[in-house]
């Protein structure tokens, strides 16, 4: 593939433009379903687009005495990470041959970037509330990354390869016992990675007045919100690719429908959890992820190794 | 749980006995409210009696500018008996000075600051007498809750 083609793919489809638009639409679905749960109307379809557009016409205020360069660059870290991750993921989904050895590991690292960007931005803000939010985000990250790696291990063991393309070509792990258990653990990790209730303590609005993003305004804030929306779209796609991969790539146009259904199911579960659970404390979340979730993921790995 | 015995005569007698001649007046407004008038210079010992010996809890201190002078009332809660004993002192409006009880009962620190800034009662021996509610640049000698001031009842 020529450099120009790759560049266009990065900018348009399935990179920046596609992921951003899909992410904002997913964010609207989230807000609309939340509104329906609360028996009200909710925002119009394009509202998330209006919100992001509005952030880009606002002034960017920089806190005095903070680490200014880091403050302004932090949003780009996450933004670049999720864009690249989406690009790699969709290229593999559309053409299982377009993968490379280790792309799964690259994906895991890229999907770490949004959280890292938020943490760096929070500590560059020179604000005590942002520091508290940042430290909570760090603790949360340490908590959920462990079971997440174990969860990703299950389809790898079942397919016998670490190339995303091979995983997509192998039969869908969700049908097996170990795959189902790993998917369950993966959903918990998904909720935490998206910083959604019950794991939204870094950005607790009522407690921390905005927490990690308290000092951000204007374009950097818009980028953070956009990154969050793109993660809301990309992470369920990642889980679908891992656990329903075989189904998605096998049957032509039908497979697209199956993939969409699986993705919708995951997103709906996320929204329902977000609207019905209370916020956990950091120590409760860490205990939850290092306890039941890790045990479940470990069990799934052992079962996958045994062939179940 | 049985209803709290409203100020069992035991405790009230004990207070009255300890105050002795310093008790100027004692009135019982209701089963749970007793008002005891004491002279300003006995305030410190009366507070030590209530806080250290009887074990009462200082609820709040209130102040009123009346015709007789500036009344300062100390409301002590006897939680076990379920009632409140109020010590009332009156100081002269021309020179309102009282001993601070913050040394005996630290809870009185802030409320004495408030009474000082709003009524002008000088609390001798207060560890940190500065504005609490009013702005730091509030004009000196301007006590908003004194009678005759604009905006005061």
């Amino acid at each position: 593939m020529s450099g120009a083609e790759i560049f266009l793919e990065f900018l348009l489809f399935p990179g920046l433009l596609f992921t951003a638009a899909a992410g904002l639409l997913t964010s609207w679905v989230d807000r609309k379903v939340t509104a329906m749960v609360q028996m009200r109307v909710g925002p119009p379809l394009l509202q998330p687009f209006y919100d992001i557009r509005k952030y880009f016409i606002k002034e960017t205020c920089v806190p005095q005495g903070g680490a200014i360069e880091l403050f302004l660059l932090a949003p780009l870290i996450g933004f670049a990470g999720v864009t690249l991750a989406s690009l790699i993921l969709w290229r593999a989904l559309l053409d299982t041959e377009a993968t490379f050895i280790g792309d799964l590991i690259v994906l895991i690292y890229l999907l770490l970037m949004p959280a890292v960007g938020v943490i760096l931005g929070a500590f560059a803000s020179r604000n005590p509330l942002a520091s508290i939010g940042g430290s909570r985000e760090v603790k949360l990250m340490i908590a959920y990354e462990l079971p997440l790696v174990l969860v990703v291990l299950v389809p790898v063991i079942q397919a016998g390869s670490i190339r995303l393309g091979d995983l997509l070509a192998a039969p869908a792990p969700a049908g097996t016992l170990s795959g189902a258990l790993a998917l369950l653990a993966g959903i918990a990790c998904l909720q935490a990675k998206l910083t959604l209730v019950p794991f939204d303590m870094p950005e607790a609005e009522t407690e921390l007045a905005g927490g990690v993003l308290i000092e951000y305004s204007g374009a950097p804030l818009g980028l953070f919100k956009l990154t969050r929306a793109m993660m809301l779209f990309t992470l369920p796609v990642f889980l679908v690719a891992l656990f329903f991969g075989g189904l998605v790539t096998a049957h032509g146009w039908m497979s697209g429908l199956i993939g969409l259904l699986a993705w919708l199911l995951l997103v709906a579960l996320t929204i329902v959890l977000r609207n019905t659970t209370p916020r956990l404390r950091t120590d409760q979340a860490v205990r939850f992820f290092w306890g039941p979730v890790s045990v479940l993921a470990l069990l799934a790995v052992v079962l996958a190794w045994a062939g179940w | 749980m049985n209803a709290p015995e409203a100020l069992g005569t035991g405790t009230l007698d004990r207070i009255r006995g300890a105050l002795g001649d310093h008790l100027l007046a004692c009135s019982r407004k209701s089963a749970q409210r007793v008002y005891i008038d004491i002279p300003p210079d006995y305030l410190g010992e009366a507070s030590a009696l209530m806080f250290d010996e009887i074990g009462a809890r200082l609820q709040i201190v209130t102040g009123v500018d009346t015709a007789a002078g500036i009344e300062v009332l100390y409301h002590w809660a006897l939680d076990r008996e379920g009632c409140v004993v109020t010590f009332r002192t009156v100081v002269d409006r021309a020179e309102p000075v009282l001993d601070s009880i913050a040394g005996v009962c630290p809870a009185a620190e802030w409320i004495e600051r408030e009474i000082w800034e709003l009524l002008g009662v000088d609390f001798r021996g207060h560890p940190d007498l500065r504005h609490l509610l009013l702005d730091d640049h509030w004009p000196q000698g301007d006590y908003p809750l004194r009678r005759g001031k604009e905006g005061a009842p």
Partner: protein
Amino acid sequence: MSYAINTLTRSLNVFHLAGSACNNCDIEILDALTPRYDLERFGITLVGSIRHADVLLLSGIFNRKARVRLLELLRQAPKPYLVVAIGGCPATGLLFRESYNFDRPPGDYVPIDAFIPGCPPKPEAIISGMVRVIEGLRSGALAPRCMEAGRPAPASALPETAA
């Protein structure tokens, strides 16, 4: 209608500041933000940080101490923003005007774009006021007053006497 105004009025983040208020207006503002009145369908959401805000809702009489905080908050607000005063107190002080801690109407030292009178105004009145502000901005009758005023000076020292 300019692009900036169109963009701003379609998505308003609201930040609420109660400056020595009796809190009745604050309760009514909270009511207006509940699912029953559903302000989200207009694109209005409540935010916790002034840096995320497009509309600053003021309530209360703003005594001398609150005045310092209000000016500090306005220094932190990213332009363009609107300042909307809820209730009668920010306008005239109403029944608290003769009180010893009444300083001066905040309209004297910050540019206020709209007043929503009432004591307290019902959520319907608050919504109606916000809609009128949005329509006024879009028709060009109103312009965010923060743009003409400079950034407020730091209020680190108050005047010596209660003005």
